[in-house]
């Protein structure tokens, strides 16, 4: 691994892949043998993707970072379960979604006061109202609604990425949409 360590730096920018970067399969193989530097390079290459996904469910930097850290720690601990049948990023996405789901279920969603929102895209009032709506949904429903409507994934896609059965996702999606519909009918939406 000496050659690889020459081209990896821990303080490099974002997800930039250095010149003469080893391919992902080499990094995964090295990390599976306990090479932390190889794993850190995998982290650097995938961190933006993981932050982006976690940012769908959490608004505060601390929560997003917690989800990302937990995802990578789980990946490190379970590297021996990764098989190369699927790309590493798919495996990581599944871990990240499961971490976010677990964290969502333990943390209460709160609606911040106007002005305290860390990042607002589009109309701030509409964003706040959507947050209000989400906060009234149970965590499991919120999780699925954000995947289906936020990420725009189909039921089959959600099932594949989470490793859940399609029937399970369909039943949960049906219930989540029904609760959302009830909230919209009560007028709790933009």
């Amino acid at each position, binding site marked *: 691994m000496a050659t690889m360590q020459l081209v990896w730096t*821990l*303080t490099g*920018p*974002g997800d930039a892949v250095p010149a003469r970067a080893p391919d992902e399969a080499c990094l995964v193989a090295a*990390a*599976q043998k*306990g090479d*932390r530097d190889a*794993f*850190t390079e995998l*982290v*650097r290459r995938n*961190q*933006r993707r993981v*932050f*982006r996904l*976690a*940012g*769908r469910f*959490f*608004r*505060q*930097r601390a929560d997003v*970072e917690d989800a*990302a*850290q937990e995802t990578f*720690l789980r990946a*490190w*601990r*379970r*590297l*021996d379960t990764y098989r190369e049948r699927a790309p590493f990023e798919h495996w990581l996405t599944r871990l990240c979604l499961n971490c976010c789901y677990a964290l969502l279920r333990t943390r209460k969603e709160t609606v911040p006061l106007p002005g305290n929102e*860390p*990042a607002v*895209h*589009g109309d701030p009032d*509409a*964003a706040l*109202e*959507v947050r209000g*709506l*989400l906060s009234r949904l149970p965590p499991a429903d919120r999780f699925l609604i*954000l995947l289906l*409507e*936020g990420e*725009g994934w189909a039921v089959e896609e959600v099932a594949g990425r989470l490793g859940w*059965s399609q*029937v*399970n996702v*369909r*039943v949960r999606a*049906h*219930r989540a949409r*029904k609760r*959302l*519909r009830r909230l*919209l*009918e009560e007028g709790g*939406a*933009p």
Partner: protein
Amino acid sequence: MNCAQVRHGLMRADSHHPMAAHLRHCAACRGFAERLESTRLGLRRHHAGIEPDAAFAARLHRRLANDTPGDLGRAALHLLPLTAAVLLLLLLISTQTAPLAEPAATITTTEEAYLAWVLATDDENS
């Protein structure tokens, strides 16, 4: 077609659902459709937009220093004899105290049947 059926179709974003005629003359469902569309747009934009800082990988690298890959699997392997002993004990207790189970043939519920039941009962109530 009633309001409940139209709203069910709207929630599923079912483009084949014949709801246009109903929406033309039902102001309540039109309002609902507009609220839903606005919510969908908000949900697509609902994102913290947070990027990892430059030191994230380094911080994680420090945390990894106390960890080795596959720790969990190895820990589980060490606990295997204890787990087997507990399971054996539980099995012994259950065979001595529990009545005979119902024949497995009476259990007919499959995932698909469950889905059909959920969808049918929910639609009846909606």
